[in-house]
Structures are given as C-alpha cells and as structure tokens.
C-alpha cells in the first residue's frame, strides 16, 4: 500500500534535488523513508507532516552529501574522482593567484621602489611610477584588505592540511566577493562591469575550495619546502604584476612549454592537471574578453590587439588541453555506488 505524500515529504524530496541524479536514483527512497520514520517518532508528527520543513540541519547535511558525491575524494567512480580532483586543483590555483595578488598589494605599500620601473594602475594601463599609492580608507579598501588576508590564510591552511580552516577562509572570501559584486552591479562605470566579472571568477575559485575539500579528501601533509615553493611562486607572480609580464603571460609560457614537452613525448600530465589548467585558461580568457571591450570603447588599438591575441591563445590552449585530457579520462560508470548489488 502506498502512503500518500505529505507536505513534509514533498519538501524533503525537493531538498534532495541538490544531490546528483544517479545518486537520487539509488538512494532517494531509502533516505526519504529514514527521514520520515524519524519524524514519525515526534509527538508533533502530524503537525510536522502537514506544515513542517525538514530544517536547516538536514539541509546542511544533504548539501554536504551532495558535494561529497559530486566531487568525491575516495568514494565514487574513477571519473567522479577525476572531477573531484579537478575542482580541488582549480580552487588551489585560484588561491595561489589570489595570494599573489595580495602579496602584490602588500609589496606596493611596503616597498614602492619595486614599482619604479613599471606600474599597472587600477585602470589596467601601464605607465611610469607616480609615487606612493594613496591609501583610501573607504569600505571597498577595507574589504579588499580583508579579501587579501582571507586568500593567503586559506592557501596556507590548505598547504598545512587544515582544510576546515581553509574552508572558513574560502567562505569569508566568497562573502566578501559577493559584497563587491553587489556593489559592482550598482555602479555605472564600465570598469565596474569588468570588476564584476573579475570578482565573479574569484568567487568561482572560492566556491571550488568550499565544495572540493571535505572529510572524504586526504589532508595534505605539511611540508615546509612545499610552502616555501608556493610562497616563491606567489612572490614571483606578484612581482610579475609590476612589469609588462602579466600573469596571463606566465600561464601562456607554461602552456606552450607543456605543448612542446607533450608533442615530444617527454612527459604527459595527468587528466586532472590538464582539465584544471584548461578551466583556468578559459576563465582568464573570459576576464580578458571584458577588458577587450574596454580597449575597443577607448579606441586603444594596440592594447586591443594585445588583448585579442591573449584571448585567442588562452582559448586555443584551453580547448587543446581539454582535448588531451578527454583522451585519457576513465570511462563513466553507470552508478558509482554498488549498494544494490
């Protein structure tokens, strides 16, 4: 005999939509049964069935389960494990970029003479150094400093294996970026549209950290040389922002170097690395695309040509890296769970 569906059951089933389709096909009915049997023990069960909501605690546990099943660390099909690894790598690369940007900001205040050769202004144009950067104590400046600190904290926490702290840092990053994005949308200046896109991409990186790292993933064992290496990489990139060699150039040089190594069969990167770098290239191309329209608007044809070339190479790289990764991806399993076997 089929029990008629109550309001609570309908709401709980709607909540389970956050889980992957294959997971729901396997687990939905037993999860619903377990939840409803628990509710049945409540003295107010009738009221809860007619008017109740499963609650934020249940919702949180289902969202966490969704992240663990979509981007697993050890439970899942080989293809799902690759997806999890890619999301974590994208998050790590994003944190590295954000930390480099933070170092850049701090260095510009601590050692402004480093910026004596070339300085990239807030408008994206390079020019001679004009003296100390004025400190403006508006809320955006304070939030920006907060953003930088959270990015460095999250990266260090991940490198030291403290993923819960890293997730807290990523959550702070995400909330701060959302505040920026809301403000960007309110602005009328064209530069704010670009800023919105930039903040959106940063928010995606933070989201990758939030959903990719969980209790199913092995924590990184702290290694000082690794932290030092990442620190040097971030410092190098941050200094790069003070010269003509912007971050995209490093990505391009690295990608082209890999194409040569790949074609000569010297080394083949794993599918996870290829897909993560492909995604980062695509995101960078998207960001550059917004600047391209700004150059077009201001009639700066040299910068426009440079930006077009950057976007084109980044898109080609992203597509090529993805194509190489697809060749070595493990096959998709019907269902990563084997519960009903």
């Amino acid at each position, binding site marked *: 005999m089929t029990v008629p569906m109550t309001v609570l059951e309908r709401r709980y089933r709607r909540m389970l939509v956050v889980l992957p389709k294959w997971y729901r096909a396997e687990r939905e009915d037993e999860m619903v049964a377990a939840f409803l049997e628990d509710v049945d023990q409540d003295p107010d069960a009738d009221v809860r069935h007619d008017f109740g909501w499963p609650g934020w605690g249940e919702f949180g546990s289902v969202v966490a389960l969704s992240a663990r099943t979509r981007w697993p660390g050890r439970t899942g099909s080989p293809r799902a494990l690759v997806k999890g690894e890619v999301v974590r790598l994208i998050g790590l690369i994003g944190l590295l970029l954000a930390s480099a940007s933070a170092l850049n900001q701090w260095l510009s205040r601590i050692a402004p003479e480093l910026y004596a050769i070339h300085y990239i202004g807030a408008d994206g144009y390079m020019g001679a150094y004009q003296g100390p950067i004025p400190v403006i104590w508006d809320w955006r400046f304070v939030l920006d400093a907060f953003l930088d600190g959270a990015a460095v904290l999250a990266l260090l926490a991940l490198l030291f294996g403290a993923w819960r702290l890293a997730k807290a840092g990523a959550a702070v990053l995400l909330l701060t970026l959302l505040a920026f994005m809301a403000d960007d949308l309110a602005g009328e200046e064209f530069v704010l549209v670009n800023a919105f896109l930039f903040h959106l991409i940063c928010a995606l990186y933070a989201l990758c950290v939030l959903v990719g790292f969980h209790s199913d993933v*092995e924590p990184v064992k702290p290694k000082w040389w690794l932290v030092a290496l990442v620190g040097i990489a971030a410092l190098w990139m941050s200094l790069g922002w003070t010269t003509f060699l912007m971050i995209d150039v490093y990505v391009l040089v690295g990608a082209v170097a890999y194409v040569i190594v790949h074609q000569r069969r010297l080394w083949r990167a794993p599918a996870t690395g290829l897909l993560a770098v492909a995604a980062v290239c695509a995101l960078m191309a998207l960001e550059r695309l917004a600047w391209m329209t700004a150059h077009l608007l201001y009639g700066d044809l040299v910068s426009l040509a440079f930006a077009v070339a950057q976007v084109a190479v980044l898109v080609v790289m992203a597509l090529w890296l993805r194509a190489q990764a697809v060749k070595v991806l493990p096959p998709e399993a019907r269902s990563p769970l084997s519960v009903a076997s």
Partner: protein
Amino acid sequence: MYSGRVASETMNEQTFLVLTVLAEETLHGYAIVRAVGELTEDRVRLRVGTLYGVLDRLVASGLVEHDRDEVHQGRLRRYYRLTNEGARALHAEIARLESNARAAATRLRAWGFEGGPA
C-alpha cells in the same frame, strides 16, 4: 601542492558508532540513526545526509554491505550488515581506543588523580 591520494583510513566517531550498532544486527537507515542515538544517550544525533555519507564510505571500502530490501508501510527499508572486514576494522579501532585510554589512565594516576568522573 595537493597530493590527491585517497584518504588513509582514520575512523571518526560517526563511522565507529555506525559499525558498532551494525555489529549487533542488520539495520536499515532509520534504525541506525535510532540505535546510535540510544547508544550515545542522544549525544550523537545522525542527520540523514550525514548517515548516508558514512554508509557510502563504508560500503565503498567493503566494511559494510547491502543485506536486503523490505517495504514497511509503503516505505523502502534497505538493510545493511557488517562484513568480516568491517568487524576486523572495528576490532582494530577498539584496540587503538583501549590503548589510548590505558595510556591516559596510567598518566592520570602517575599525576596523582584517582577519582572517577564527577
């Protein structure tokens, strides 16, 4: 940077409790939630999403397996049972916890504390 290897088996409290209640009998989802609550006097209250995260890991690592399906009052009850490997893992964890507890008790006595819990 990130090693990406599969997590080494470190048993958290929720996993330990689920294995413990399954050591007594085969149980379905809600029965596991209830049994864990009774075992811990409601100190640990498993959410359904949390329970299935634990069960997924245990099934994937072969410590627990599907036993049978039943329909009770129109609702699906899927039963799980402990495997031999699961029993061995639970036994190893008990030994580890006992060893830790013995070491703690010995040091407390050496420190001069003889009383039990308040």
